[in-house]
């Protein structure tokens, strides 16, 4: 750590990890309700459980991006953050808003659009938080060195905030509502979040592999160009069956097929940089997370996304467990692993210690990743069976669900594995090992 103000990232990382734990806990509860439906039905209905599961995910990922930005901007811009105090205020405001939202959900206070359930005051709070963040980081960027990494990251974060404004637009025509709803959801996760992902991976590669910044930044431009050239019109694959015109099927088919390409480019990029760098960075677990992130994002977002993106297939699989399978692995591979990569990389510097608990962290990596992979397989099988029975043979929904119950049991098992893995990871990140509690000399970052 070269700049004192990078320390504010610690708040965000710990906050994100706390919400991460909550997200996984509620995920396990939701998985349990799938197999034991009477369990919580009186006190905590499934819709509230799922709301907390998805909202906690989104908020902790965003919090992680904020933290990552506060960590890497000073190093990229070679200057202190404009106002560390504002960053800390922003953190508490964000955490309180997130906490208030969760408590509100439990008491049934929410709006009703999927993922955008936050009540209006909380939505306004999020915008205020975003404005504070953008002001703070943009001022930092303006006074310092401008690199491709920081430029791409900041453009992406600006668009994250701008696109969120569509969350305030809730037309009474359901089809119109759905069309603009995807402006937030798709253009986030398959657009600007991918830019964030590419720029953070680029930062990590510069730091950990020792490859020249010039090379990395050229790759970065290739990756982000591919992302947006395909991803924007790739939104078409959400406009097949919601009352939008039929031409979206053609557009969606062609462009969303190509959405695999940027993810593939990221895999090639990460492995090529590590191979080319040929340098032993002491933080092996951070490197593992970075490489794992690119691979799992390619499978989860790329391969599993492509699997049911063609309209003739999607006609049958739309809204089945196939979608759930894709959603889980895509979010885990692309964005959860990305955040864990930057956390694992940054924490030793922020806390002034050697990369610690590497073994535990890597065990966490393998257990969680295997758990998620298994969960994806079980849900995919469940989805394929469901598609056949329900969409092709026309069997009743609930009867079909009884047929695939076994897969839900296996999903719960993999969910518990994920919970264990995540416990390892959080433990490894937060709790210092006894032996390393002495302030040790940190190896210098590359570049």
């Amino acid at each position: 750590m070269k700049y004192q103000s990078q320390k504010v990232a610690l708040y965000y990382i710990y906050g994100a990890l706390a919400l991460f734990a909550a997200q996984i806990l509620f995920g396990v509860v939701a998985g349990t309700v799938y197999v034991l439906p009477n369990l919580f039905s009186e006190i905590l209905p499934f819709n509230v459980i799922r709301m907390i599961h998805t909202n906690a995910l989104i908020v902790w990922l965003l919090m992680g991006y904020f933290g990552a930005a506060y960590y890497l901007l000073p190093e990229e811009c070679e200057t202190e953050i404009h106002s560390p105090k504002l960053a800390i205020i922003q953190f508490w405001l964000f955490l309180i808003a997130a906490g208030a939202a969760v408590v509100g959900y439990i008491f049934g206070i929410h709006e009703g659009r999927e993922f955008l359930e936050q009540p209006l005051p909380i939505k306004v709070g999020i915008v205020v938080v975003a404005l504070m963040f953008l002001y703070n980081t943009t001022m930092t960027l303006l006074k310092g060195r401008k690199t491709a990494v920081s430029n791409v990251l900041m453009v992406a974060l600006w668009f994250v905030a701008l696109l969120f404004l569509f969350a305030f637009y809730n037309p009474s025509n359901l089809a119109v509502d759905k069309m603009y709803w995807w402006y937030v959801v798709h253009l986030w996760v398959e657009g600007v979040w991918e830019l964030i992902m590419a720029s953070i991976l680029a930062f990590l590669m510069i730091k950990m592999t020792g490859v020249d910044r010039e090379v990395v930044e050229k790759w970065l431009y290739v990756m982000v160009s591919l992302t947006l050239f395909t991803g924007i019109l790739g939104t078409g694959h959400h406009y097949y069956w919601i009352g939008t015109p039929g031409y979206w099927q053609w557009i969606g088919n062609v462009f969303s097929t190509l959405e695999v390409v940027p993810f593939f480019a990221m895999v090639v990029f990460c492995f090529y940089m590590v191979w080319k760098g040929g340098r032993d960075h002491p933080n092996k677990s951070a490197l593992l997370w970075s490489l794992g992130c690119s691979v799992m994002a390619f499978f989860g977002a790329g391969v599993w996304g492509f699997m049911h993106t063609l309209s003739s297939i999607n006609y049958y699989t739309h809204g089945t467990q196939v979608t759930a399978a894709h959603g889980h692995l895509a979010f885990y591979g692309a964005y959860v692993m990305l955040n864990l990569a930057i956390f694992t990389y940054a924490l030793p510097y922020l806390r002034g210690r050697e990369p610690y608990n590497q073994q535990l962290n890597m065990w966490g990596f393998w257990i969680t990743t295997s758990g998620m992979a298994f969960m994806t397989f079980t849900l995919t099988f469940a989805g394929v069976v469901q598609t056949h029975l329900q969409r092709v043979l026309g069997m009743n929904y609930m009867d079909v669900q009884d047929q695939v119950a076994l897969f839900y049991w296996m999903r719960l098992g993999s969910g518990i594995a994920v919970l264990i893995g995540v416990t390892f990871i959080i433990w490894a990140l937060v709790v210092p090992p006894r032996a390393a509690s002495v302030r040790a000399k940190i190896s210098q970052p590359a570049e």
Partner: protein
Amino acid sequence: MTAQTQLSSGAEDNDTASWGGLELLPGHPIMWVLILSELVVFGAFLLTFSGARVVDPQGFAQDQMQLDRLAGGINTLVLLTSGLFAVFAIQAVNTGNICRSRLWLVLASLGGAIFLIIKMIEYRAKFDAGIGLESSTFFTLYFLITGFHALHVVLGIGILMVVAIWPSRINVETGAAFWHMVDMVWVLVFPVIYLVR
């Protein structure tokens, strides 16, 4: 390279690293990311078109009768000529003749403008005949493919104009590369959509 030296040497434009093979192509490598994505998109669209035609050859043939083949043919000639002008622009900038290069770039984009006018007349005739995007599979694909291509012509004109303002050699090559791609896509689109039946 340390951060220090990068800052002092103006990190932004001082690069010697390769673009991983993309620099072998004329013009700026990132332009080729765009061009290659576009070629795949148009290629996929043309193959999709052929595939959709297999499902309903009669319907496609009927709808195709309503296309203006002559206008399409004239447009092919217009774009070919315009592409030739873009070649002249590169020749001119290679010999250091900036003024002439600018002139050829403007003429090339004029060709693009004529293409667009003819296209507009074509579209207008379709709309007047009550044919729209959702009329049939053939017309959906016809409007999507040719419309998407026409928007590339618009973008190409914009790029040629920008390049005409700053006509360095690499800029002219980059702009011309995009323009030739638009040209090349059209000579493929024209026979597949207008002529084959």
